[in-house]
């Protein structure tokens, strides 16, 4: 298992938002976290990434993540947060190059290595933005910026990518392309991804397995194909499957 989460509790000082979540991620696997607003999906990702104080265990390749220094942790786990505004006019290339930060030695004489440069180029080509590498990120649309940040996560070259609603701001074509490029990425040896999605149909296209959350607890963990529609409907408080079918019917 490249990632093991055991009995994780986490919150923001008040009552725990994530209450005893356990799951594991195998090599090459894509897990999607589903659940209604406020059920603790984002908090779960942030806790795994080590951004919040937590109880319980997070194991990476069997080693306790809490014992890793930040840089070492960032070489194993990357988090793509929900889109935040950018204030400073870095170029697309510079922004993606920052993903190499945990791989650098640092210091005064630090230069981009050949490995850094080829990782950045490959990442930008994966998201189709190599041609736009000299543009300022402040001039990009939300969707383009989202792809830049995905490329930065690729350049960070972790074992596990955590994605928090990566397809927000993307039109349908790029949503599909993003899930495809993630699929290609996780096919490389020793990789895996955990994604939080709002769009349930896209989540089911992206994921091998589903973790369904409600009020901070796991309601279902298993193959995406075996997700019970009634359970999904109860958790979301509406007939999700019926709604999607009805929507499709209107097109036919």
């Amino acid at each position, binding site marked *: 298992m490249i990632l093991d989460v055991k009995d994780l509790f986490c919150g923001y*000082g008040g009552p725990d938002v994530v209450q005893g979540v356990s799951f594991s991620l195998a090599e090459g696997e894509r897990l999607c976290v589903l659940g209604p607003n406020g059920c603790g999906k984002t908090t779960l990702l*942030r806790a795994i*990434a*080590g*951004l919040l104080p937590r109880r319980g265990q997070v194991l990476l390749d069997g080693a306790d993540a809490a014992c890793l*220094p*930040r*840089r070492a*942790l*960032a*070489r194993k*786990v*990357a*988090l793509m*947060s929900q889109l*935040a505004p*950018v*204030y*400073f*006019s*870095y*170029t697309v290339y*510079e*922004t993606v190059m*920052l*993903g190499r*930060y*945990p791989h*650098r030695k*640092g*210091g*005064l004489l*630090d230069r981009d290595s050949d490995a850094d440069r080829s990782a950045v180029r490959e990442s930008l080509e994966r998201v189709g933005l190599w041609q736009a590498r000299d543009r300022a990120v*402040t*001039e990009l649309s939300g969707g383009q910026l989202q792809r830049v940040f995905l490329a930065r996560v690729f350049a*960070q070259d972790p074992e596990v990518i955590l994605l928090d609603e990566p397809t927000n701001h993307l039109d349908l074509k790029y949503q599909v392309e993003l899930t495809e490029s993630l699929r290609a990425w996780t096919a490389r040896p020793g990789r895996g991804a955990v994604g939080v999605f709002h769009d349930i149909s896209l989540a089911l296209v992206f994921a091998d397995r589903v973790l369904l959350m409600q009020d901070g607890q796991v309601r279902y963990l298993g193959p995406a194909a075996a997700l019970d529609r009634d359970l999904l409907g109860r958790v979301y408080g509406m007939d999700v499957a019926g709604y999607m079918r009805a929507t499709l019917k209107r097109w036919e």
Partner: protein
Amino acid sequence: MALLALAAVLALTAGAALGSVPIPPGDILAILANRLFGSPLPPAMGPGYPAMVMDMRLPRVALAFLTGAALAMSGTVMQSVLQNPLASPFGLGVSSGAGLGAAVVIVTGLAAGAAGTVILPAVSLVCALGTAGLVLWFAGQLDRGAGGVTIVLIGMTASLFFNAIMDLLATLSPAYAQRIGLWQLGSFSMREWSAVWVLLPVTAAGLVFFFGHARALDVMTFGQEQAQAMGVDLRRTRGRLIVAVSLLAGSSVAFVGIIGFIDLIAPHVARRFFGASHRRVLPASALIGGTFMVLCDLAARTLVPPREIPIGSITALLGAPFFLYVYFTGRRRGRL
């Protein structure tokens, strides 16, 4: 960058050459050569020139350049650390803290006499550091993550609060009001080489220190959560950088008083011409800040001779419209 360095040299030369008595740049070079290498002075030179250049003009332009560079770098780092293009050491309360310390020293009469030349800078530097520590501590109490916005808000509050106390002190002790007022607007008059010899290593060390953190600063501009997820030990790195900023900004305030706007605008100019990467922005903003300060000081003492306009007024007069320009063009493009 080479052009910028050239502009800095030209500004320094102009700063040394122009004044109540203009001195040709050739003579300045000759005087420098005479001091450094013992070469003879040209016989045609005015008799007072060497003393004027060495004791008045040069220390003054050197000090102006160094404080400009130090403030500009502090501003650059502050804006990145707090992910806020409007942040500055001023906004963190560091400058006002240092100023208040100085005002207290002035009012209590400790600033008078020879000891004052040491006590005044020392106390204001300690107050600058103390204010930074207080603001960070307070922000940490309010909000466990001590977010950038929290720090900016607390810093602004501290800044206004300390300024108000300074005004109060000035009102209550009219005898010292003028001196406090002068401090609040900054001045390079009556400055000696000793200040330069303190600020030069501090500023150089600051540049090297910040340059070593250039990539971490780059990462931090994208937000605290992202920075941490990308491997930056946020609390420790940010703490170190803010202490360094306070030292740098505090020591320049300690010698010349509060001079605003350079710390805010120099980073913006540098980014506009050199992009956002700190490996370029840090040296560029230092050069821009230094050059701009020398030119402002030149304007301050030559526009209405023999009177001297406070340097803080000049930087604000030029800085305020520029600030609005940056703010509104930035907002139109959705950048701020």
